[in-house]
């Protein structure tokens, strides 16, 4: 009985530890001079090879295509996902005020939960619709953590030596998504490689820059 209680206590400790915020050890403060907004991507257009991998109810899925980012003259941003043969899967738009809309999506992907997940991924990645007044900063282990409050949870922009390393979306307690990136030419350019890792939904989206990319 005593052993059972000890084991239960250990398990409870592990569960509570896992339930805590991954950044509970950080002390955040307000500092406008350290804003992560300097990392907001400035771009004309960029084309990526896109591979989606995951599993749902023990069934694996794999999907590949091309993801195209473009900033239009009216300051709206479009993200289009198509297969290799040119058939469009979705066409998302953020207007100049960061208001989001779906221009087109194939019926197989037109599920509210999926659209919401993709919108959130891409919005955080592109610094769309962030509440700048909620931004706080902390430093630890040579990393700078800029945290923005979202409707649910937080978005952490984690940088080192003035380069954005990754973005983490957390709920109240756990990481939901990690967006790791590499190959940024400048502080504010889109990275050459990106990996969206959904810890709860168990899928990844991998982006690799395509060269030469789209031309007029």
């Amino acid at each position, binding site marked *: 009985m005593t052993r059972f209680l000890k084991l239960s206590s250990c398990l409870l400790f592990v569960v509570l530890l896992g339930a805590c915020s991954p950044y509970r050890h950080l002390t955040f403060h307000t500092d406008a001079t350290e804003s992560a907004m300097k990392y907001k991507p400035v771009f004309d257009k960029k084309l990526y090879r896109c591979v989606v991998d995951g599993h749902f109810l023990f069934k694996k899925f*794999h999907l*590949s295509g091309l993801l*195209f980012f473009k900033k239009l003259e009216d300051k709206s941003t*479009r993200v289009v996902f198509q297969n*290799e043969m040119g058939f*469009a899967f979705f066409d998302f738009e953020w207007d100049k005020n960061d208001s989001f809309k779906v221009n087109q999506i194939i019926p197989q992907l037109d599920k509210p939960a999926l659209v919401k997940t993709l919108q959130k991924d891409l919005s955080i990645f592109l610094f769309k619709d962030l509440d700048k007044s909620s931004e706080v900063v902390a430093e630890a282990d040579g990393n700078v953590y800029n945290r923005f409050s979202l409707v649910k949870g937080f978005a952490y922009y984690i940088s080192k030596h003035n380069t954005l390393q990754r973005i983490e979306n957390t709920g109240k307690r756990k990481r939901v998504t990690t967006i790791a990136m590499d190959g940024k030419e400048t502080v504010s350019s889109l990275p050459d490689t990106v990996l969206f890792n959904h810890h709860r939904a168990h899928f990844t989206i991998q982006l690799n820059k395509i060269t030469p990319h*789209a*031309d007029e």
Partner: protein
Amino acid sequence: MISVGIHAQPKGYTAVKNLSAFQQSLSQANAGKQTITSDFTQVKNLSLLSDKIKSKGKFYFKKDDKVRIEYTSPYSYLLVMNGGQIMVKDEQKTSKINTKNSKTMQSVNRIMIDCMRGTVLQNPDFKVTAYENAQGYLLSLAPANDAMRKMFKQIDVIMDKKTYDVRKFTMTEQNGDFTYMDFINSKQNAAINDALFKVK
């Protein structure tokens, strides 16, 4: 299904007057084609974004129902159609699709093969309107059912006037975006190893 006058007449083309003669010539020309190999360039035109995405590769066709589309640049992607099965292979994974379980994939599979072997006029998923000019024929395909209408607004196939080889294949989506494939350096009846069409 073939008809005249469903679409607005494309610029530079007139409707084919003698459809049965055209159909007969197309069948005769394709009867002698056992294989087709070709290079292709593909351009996806994003109308609203005023932008294009280009790619290129190799195309293989072998009668009756084998197609291999191999994208080589700027990304690697392979699509093989063989009978009722499709295999796709990207940089990371090979996937097999049984078209018998998917009406849409079955239709896309069939339209590509029908265009190559000259049986496109009999395809039940599209209403075909035929036009011609001095250089070639233009077959304009309008979806005849809802499944196809969800995918395509129209498909246009341009064929060489003398050889009836497919020169250009254009798929237009409902939002006006279109993708065309230009077939160049086409060769007929070159030996093609069956291994190229193996669906593993």
